[in-house]
């Protein structure tokens, strides 16, 4: 129904603006209905303006900025409708060190509500994991999983390099 969509849409707009401002340490963002008069069918556009910059199409944003916008959208929905568990595959790949710290703080907040399973190449991100699993192919083409301690994860890469 119209009212149901409008109230959910308003809620997620609010949530998205808040998380965006947190991930960008400022700036403005919004979700815009393409056609205000046709709420039941209208498409949805994303508007994003990093702090100090002037709004242009999100296509002009950098690789890392786009990742932060995507993170803000997903976590805005999770904030309103948490799921029992969340799976993130290299969501932090385009982020610089600074933004990875912001992403980590976001995960630390959200983990109170949902269980997280994250894949990452970033040693910094892996620092906040409560458990770490290393996936290896000791036998070529065959995956196996080993439980690793944090400092072990770093050497996991070294060990594979020596075998290679």
């Amino acid at each position, binding site marked *: 129904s119209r009212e149901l969509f409008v109230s959910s849409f308003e809620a997620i707009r609010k949530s998205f603006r808040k998380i965006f401002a947190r991930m960008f340490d400022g700036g403005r963002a919004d979700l815009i209905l393409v056609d205000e008069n046709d709420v039941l069918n209208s498409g949805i556009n994303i508007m994003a303006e990093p702090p100090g910059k002037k709004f242009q199409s999100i296509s002009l944003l950098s690789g890392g900025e*786009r990742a932060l916008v995507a993170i803000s959208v997903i976590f805005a929905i999770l904030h309103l409708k948490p799921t*029992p568990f969340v799976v993130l*595959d290299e969501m932090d790949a385009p982020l610089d060190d600074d933004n990875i710290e912001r992403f980590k703080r976001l995960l630390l907040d959200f983990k109170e509500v949902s269980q997280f*399973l994250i*894949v990452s190449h970033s040693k910094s*991100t892996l620092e906040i*994991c409560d*458990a770490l699993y290393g996936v290896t192919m000791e036998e070529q*083409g*065959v995956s196996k999983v080993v439980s690793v301690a944090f400092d072990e994860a770093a050497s996991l890469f070294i060990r594979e390099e020596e075998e290679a």
Partner: protein
Amino acid sequence: RYLKTIELDGFKSFAVKTTLECVDGITGIVGANGSGKSNIVEAIKWVLGEQSAKSLRGEKMEDVIFNGTQNRSPKGMAEVTLTFSNENHWLPLDFNEVSIGRRIFRSGEGQYFINKSRVRLKDIVEIFLDTGIGRDSYAIFEQGKIDRLLSESPEERRLLFEEFA
């Protein structure tokens, strides 16, 4: 803690039965390129009912069955099982622990299981309704999804929001 274990057997590069125990909080997965990390993420999508082979990087669903290496022959079946804790009854079933399983054979024939009893796909879909989990869930973010989320048309994005709203 909701998700207790993930078991893969014959799913993609997991030729040998493998079990991952998830912890409360954040479970991290690391490993070299091509070692199998994203395959684990896809196993979760798959067992929850994913119907599109393309969204699992394959052309047909049988592509998820371990297809052999230079030293091992292909397997005839792929199986994934997720075991959940259900003590707070977040899943509408009268069990404290719920296992969701799925198998696929070379013929393309597939099977679904709840606590080892054979069920249909619609039963799996039904129990996850309203949990936010299920195929195409916003809670499962695949590698490379950033571009898809941002470059889809306003109309496609609408569909994503309707699913959530």
